[in-house]
């Protein structure tokens, strides 16, 4: 019985980590848009390449934040959460 419970915990943590990384779609689309517009801008005004590139990198970094939140959640779910959940399970069984 205990093995099944621990297995369910591990499996659900892995599933949750996978589901959390769906958030990677958003930053991907956003950064793609940003880079496309930056390319257009450079094509129109090649002399402003430096400024456009700097601003684009900044915007990309900020757009990436939501994806990185998802990454942090996924990493927590894989490396930290299983141990904690199993500990909680053990404690409740001990009582």
């Amino acid at each position: 019985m205990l093995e099944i419970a621990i297995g369910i915990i591990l499996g659900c943590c892995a599933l949750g980590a996978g589901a959390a990384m769906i958030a990677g779609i958003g930053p991907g689309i956003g950064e793609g848009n940003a880079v496309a517009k930056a390319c257009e801008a450079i094509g129109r005004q090649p002399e402003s390449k430096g400024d456009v590139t700097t601003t684009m990198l900044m915007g990309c970094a900020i757009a990436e934040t939501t994806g990185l939140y998802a990454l942090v959640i996924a990493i927590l779910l894989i490396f930290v959460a299983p141990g904690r959940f199993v500990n909680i399970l053990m404690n409740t069984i001990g009582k």
Partner: protein
Amino acid sequence: MQKNNMRFLAVDIIYLTLAIIPLLFGIVLNILFTPASSGIEISGALIYFTIKMPLQDLPITESQVNSWIVILSIFWICMYMTHGLKSKDCLRRQHIAEWIVNTTESLVKGNMGEYFKGFAPFIAAIMGLSAFSSLLTLIGLYPPTSDINIVGGWAILVFILITYYKFKCGPIHYIKSFGDPVPLLAPLNVISEVATPVSMAFRHYGNILSGTVISVLIASGLKGLSSIVLGWLPSFLGEIPILQIGLPAILSVYFDLFSGCLQAFIFAMLTMMYISGGFPAEDFFKKKSRKAKYNKETI
């Protein structure tokens, strides 16, 4: 002149060795404390030793030690670069040092305005520390920037600076700034205030850590693939992971070199933008000129 030259060279060599010794020290510590394990695995920073404290034990981790190593190395490299400054026919290193100073000063002036030009050393320090910490992976050490405690500390430092410059017009102005468009949005403004350091820390740490994780996954995947493809070869020939040669190095150019330097630049840029953006420049200068006028009248 010849004698002087010899002394100059000797000091140069001392500076360079002092810059390299911490790195060697870090590598030796890493080799001594790494537990024997099988194959490639993802793990956090090693704990070298713990100091007994009354409330909670203080662990001295690999990331703390490595960030001190980076600080010492950067210090001695700076000493080396500014050694023997001359006004004419100067050395090559002086040109590099001048270029670094000029670039950061123009960057800070361009992004933060004239009032904040004293911030150039701080911004250069943050950028150098962050970039060199991320580049520490190139010699096989644990990069301190992939530990959230280190990057979180930097983010808290930046947050204190932001709040200090927001307080420049007095506490009443600071509290008023939370109810900016309408007072109803004050809770959201508080949340966005707190989210600034959190997002800065997570952005930097997440980028470096995700690079490490992806590199490790690809390296272990290639090992498995080569054992499938070449496993039929006799004895030890089948165990050599031939496919691991090449591809991880190419990926490392992006994940270690490009991503590390870019994140350092972005961290510094965001620091500059948040500090100069939060500073109520208009009100501050108005208040200052009013005060100066008042002082003149009373005198």
